[in-house]
């Protein structure tokens, strides 16, 4: 009956094993195509190394590469955390006051529209070669989606629930903590998930300039010495890091907001 309107439900759509297996299959196919291409067209490793070359490269100096990954990860997480600590309260304030929203919003838009690569050198001039310019770059990258989604979430409270709280004579604080903030959580998490990927990009950009550590620095150095394979190893580690951070957020969301899963 419903064959036409409903997507077919099979083992592939419903099984949790398939949920883990399918992404792996997708990845394996992509890697296979890459590998096939390097062999079929006999591409030189300095142009495009094969997956195997990349793996070998990693095991040449695993401790070093993992340490640089750790550095980038730390910057990313610190900047992301800072963006939450600053961004969420700003969004909450914006939502409460139309005047502030009008005052601050264009500024936020402006800061967000600046190409971040352009200010990386400036950050180094202002803050030196330590980790601060990196953390600030990450902050700049992921601050905006967090503010937007939090503000959006805070505005999405259904009127009937607000009316319910009013009819119960709830104080403004109660309305805020027991209703509005809770209701906004799924949307806030959506912002976090967008932001975490941008955060990783931010850390790489900042490590291109005035850095002596981190995966961005490794990539930059490998460019200088035409070590394409090393660059690929670093890029692979970066994407692994991105994926790990993203799914950490997904797990956290599942755990904190079990009630929100049903809406997906």
């Amino acid at each position, binding site marked *: 009956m419903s064959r036409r309107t409903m997507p077919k439900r099979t083992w592939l759509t419903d099984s949790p094993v398939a949920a883990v297996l399918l992404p792996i299959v997708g990845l394996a196919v992509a890697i296979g195509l890459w590998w096939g291409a390097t062999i079929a067209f006999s591409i030189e490793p300095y142009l495009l190394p094969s997956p195997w070359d990349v793996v070998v490269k990693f095991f040449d100096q695993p401790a070093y590469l993992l340490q640089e990954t750790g550095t980038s990860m730390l910057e990313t997480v610190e900047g992301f955390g800072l963006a939450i600590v600053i961004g969420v309260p700003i969004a909450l304030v914006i939502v409460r006051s139309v005047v502030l929203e009008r005052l601050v919003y264009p500024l936020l838009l402006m800061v967000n529209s600046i190409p971040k690569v352009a200010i990386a050198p400036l950050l180094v001039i202002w803050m030196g070669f330590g980790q601060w310019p990196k953390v600030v770059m990450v902050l700049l990258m992921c601050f905006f989606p967090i503010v937007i989604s939090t503000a959006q979430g805070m505005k999405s409270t*259904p009127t*009937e*629930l607000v*009316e*319910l*709280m*009013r*009819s*119960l*004579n*709830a104080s403004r604080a*109660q309305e805020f903590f*027991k*209703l509005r903030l*809770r*209701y906004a959580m799924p949307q806030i998490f959506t912002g976090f998930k967008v932001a975490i990927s941008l955060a990783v990009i931010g850390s790489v950009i900042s490590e291109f300039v005035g850095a002596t550590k981190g995966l961005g620095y490794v990539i930059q150095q490998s460019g200088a010495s035409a070590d394409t394979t090393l660059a690929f190893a670093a890029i692979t580690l970066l994407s692994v890091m991105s994926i790990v951070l993203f799914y950490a957020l997904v797990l956290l969301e599942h755990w904190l*907001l*079990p*009630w*929100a899963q*049903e*809406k997906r």
Partner: protein
Amino acid sequence: MIRLDGVGQVFDGREGQVTALEKIDLHVRGGEFVTLIGRSGCGKSTLLRLIAGLLPPTSGAVQVAGKPVTGPRRDVSFMFQRPALLPWRSVLSNVLLPVEIDKGDRNKAEYKERAHQLLELVGLQGFERRLPHELSGGMQQRVSLCRSLIRDPQVMLMDEPFSALDALTRTELSEELQRIKMELSTTIVFVTHSIEEAVVLADRVVVLTPRPGRMREVVDIDIPRPRSLGQNAHLTEVAAISGRLHALLSEKEPVDEVRPR
């Protein structure tokens, strides 16, 4: 219990002023069940919100239990058309929300006991730990009913509470409500679109005119309780009064009462 004297409500809409209610004089006695019917947009919800203290009237006076209404009172509960449950709270803690909000209340444990009783009363025992999305619409509305009963309100204001439910659940719940009402002698003002429901539930039916909402007529219902739509008891009486209400609702008003907008 509830007194409205010359109550009017004018809204500042986007296209000028909208008179939602005009010259409403209504006196609801303690323990009385009044249903409110009228066309969509005639101001029924507005009237309930005025009594609930969610909205100050632009003219006239609203009193509950002899005191002018200045804001929501703890002995008045409001039930909405949709369940309005907080999706992250279990059934039990949704029912207990009014108690939790009221910081003055000290005996939380007592209320917990009461919540279990109420949930059992509406057939939801065993569902205390469930989340709202795990329940059907009818079950959610039952939870909402329990929530509005948790503090033994003197007055219950109900805005089309059963209109989103299927006919069977609706009949069940309206029987439930009559039983609860007889047990607790709560004063109830109940808005509905269904003429039959209005007749079956009410001691008196108030008919409002379309915009602006005014009192068209108040009809006393003298059919003995308990009444039911489901069983065929009192069918003829219900049908007779329903017919009359239907005529009142569809009747054009006399020309001199229609004001140009």
